[in-house]
């Protein structure tokens, strides 16, 4: 029983680490346009690294028919855009200040972030 309890606690620790503490690698946007594919409950890539002071366009391509995927929200910028199915939709940003700007679906289940910093690291 002790082992099972320990395994249970370990599982809880793993959940905390995997979903909250671990920060996955961000994809560096080497061009001004980054395509984000919305499919199967995720944004791909979900973490996008941008250089500060650079214009950027995110091109969303939604392949997920689920109505959850239909809207992308950038709460920091008060942007909430509907994404058509299987058609690109561009959202352009002026040069942004350093910082992390999350984007989500309407229900916060699909999650991604723009990470803006000076040197792209």
């Amino acid at each position, binding site marked *: 029983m002790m082992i099972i309890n320990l395994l249970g606690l370990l*599982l809880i620790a793993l959940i905390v680490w995997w979903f909250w503490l671990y920060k996955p690698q961000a994809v560096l946007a080497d061009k001004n346009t980054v395509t984000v594919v919305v499919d199967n409950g*995720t944004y791909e890539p*979900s973490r996008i690294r941008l250089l500060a002071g650079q214009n950027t366009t995110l091109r969303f391509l939604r392949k997920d*028919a689920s109505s959850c995927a239909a809207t992308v929200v950038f709460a920091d*910028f008060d942007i909430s855009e509907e994404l058509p199915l299987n058609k690109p939709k561009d959202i352009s940003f002026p040069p942004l200040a350093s910082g992390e700007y999350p984007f989500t679906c309407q*229900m916060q*289940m699909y999650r991604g972030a723009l990470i803006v910093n000076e040197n792209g690291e």
Partner: protein
Amino acid sequence: MQPTDIHVLDKANGSQETEYLRIHGASCASCVSKIEGALREIDGVKEAAMNMAQSTVSVTGHAAVEAMINAIRAAGYDAESITDSSNQSVLDEKEKADEAYHKRLMREMWIALSLGVPLMIYSLVVGEMTVTTTMERAVWLIVGLLTFGVMFFAGRHFYIGAWKSFANHSANMDTLIALGTGTAWIYSMFVVFFPSLVPEMARHVYFEATAMIIGLINLGLALEIKARGRTSEAIKRLIGLQPKTARVVRNGEEVDIAIERVQLGDHVRVRPGEKISVDGIVSDGLTAVDESMLTGEPMPVEKATGDEVVAGTINKSGSILFQATRVGKDTALAQIIEMVKRAQNSKPPIGRLADVISAYFVPVVMIIAVISALVWLNVGPDPRVAFAIVSATTVLIIACPCALGLATPMSVMVGVGKAAEAGVLIRNGEALQTASKVTAMILDKTGTITLGQPAVTDIELAHANNESKVLRLAASLEVGSEHPLALSIIESAKNRGLELGPVEQFQSVTGHGVEGIVDGHALLFGNEKLMRDRGVDIDQHLPSAQRMAALAQTPMYLAVDDQLAAIIAVSDPIKEDSIEAIKRLQNNGVRVVMLTGDNRATAKAVAERVGITEYFAEVLPDQKSDKVAELQMQGEIVGMTGDGINDAPALALANVGFAIGTGTDVAIESADITLMRGSLHGLADAIAVSKATLSNIKQNLLGAFIYNVAGVPVAAGVLYPFLGLLLSPVIAGAAMAFSSLTVVTNANRLRLFNAQKH
């Protein structure tokens, strides 16, 4: 930090320089250069870039789409435009996609339930589904494999979604469903394969739970899609107002062309009963136009040469010709649609807590499921393993982040649409929420309570003058003025056929009047204060001025060579329905305050007539925002209503600024809320709709909170020690599927709300 210049290019919405095409038949890397090369050869194409993975190509430049498609066909492939086009086609496509998704979900539901329901009935009739004999093991193995088929054919999207988001370090509803149904199935298969490793009492299988949950959740999602479609009915109606073709005069002939091809300056013919296709100015003809679909104003509006007509309204009586002044995305209708769409997607602050909770929700539920299983294993009754599995599965399945996440956006969607139907444009969720809490409303008198079209109603003469003479002098002087009352004096003089003279040394005394020289006479024209400041004796005529003011007229004094010549009274008629609308506001507990630059006596008379007890008179234009601040200091949440032109600072300072439009003259950018029709009823409607929407959001949030806060512990089995109650995973699946449907249905209830009755 909030960047100011973010813009969204809707690639599904024409008029961009970049065209997107989907390529068919391209399968190798060499196709890319062939297609790009073919496109670059077209005149006007600057750049062509193909994305092999998506089979799309983006073409920058000014070439026609047909030319691009032809070039690609000539190169041996096929292509179609995916850049297209109007709001209508975007909407049609969305509906088509939703319909296809709905069909898929329904099909998957039938697959899952056709196994789940018989198993469910079996378990209810025969009792426990246990594995004891070899025969039972064989039968349950087959059932287990069938259940796997259900998982694969009807529930695959849950498992793929769960895996993808897991790999991405995130979790969503799919995660919970996949874990719940997966746990039940794996445990059942374990029992089938290794019954001896499981205590005898715990040798249950839960295949019916897996199949039923998948079926019920697919059903819930399918019903939700349908219900969601209804939440956007208002925007669909607006989009539907846009006609598809227009009859324009080209080379002296009237021809029907697609709406997208109408150009600025085109002369457009509209016959009785037809919709007006773009915005323009009537150049010939006389008619009445029904603008109710945009303004909420039921009476048709007369239109003659020089009047403005707007797209989407209906020409009722005569045939007219008008010149297009705004086309495509610039028409008032297109802008209204854009604004309503944006507002529908924006969130009021009340939804933020739910967002924070949603962000942590799924992992927390997973942790609760583990804890629940551990507690059952440690202190539960036998069969502990079975109880642990059931409680963990039920916790995972019953938790519904969707209900929480949908609570706010669904109500905003319906509420903003409902307001738009009443001619009220709400800028965003925040404006909606603040409007619902307004405690004090400042109404600018001119143009808001009154028509804003003052006319000369009385002239009292002094010192043997005659009416024509004083009116001519006053009007000649006022030609230089920008004051709204000036126009009424000039109009009145013109109506009497008087010829105005030139004015010299014109000067405006802000807030008090004007002065200048006409026909060699030094003229002063303005209020009592101006006369007193300049030492003009008016005492003898004060009672007359007061009598005029008491009748809600504005008396203005004209002095010729420092001697009073006349008092000219101007009156701005009160809008017919102002009294009733103000009463509606007051009945809703709003403190209504009037604000005007007029003298105290006139202000009092107008205020009394419309049933307002509090008013600020003699307020100079730049003092309007001070009055807003004054009320805010008293702890009021202040709404300011004005015409949006000269009271912009006050509108901005108020907690909510209401711009009152006249007809379809949309002051979209200037205020939090724009009232499309001149009536103050729009204001009462706006407040009623926002109150109703906010209370709908609160019901939804509360319902979703209570559902999750109560449902999860019950699923974990907290009631078991007291009542012996432990939920079945199937019940949890049904509850979960219908909880989000309930939220959407409750939001749809708002569609029936009648603002006018509040």
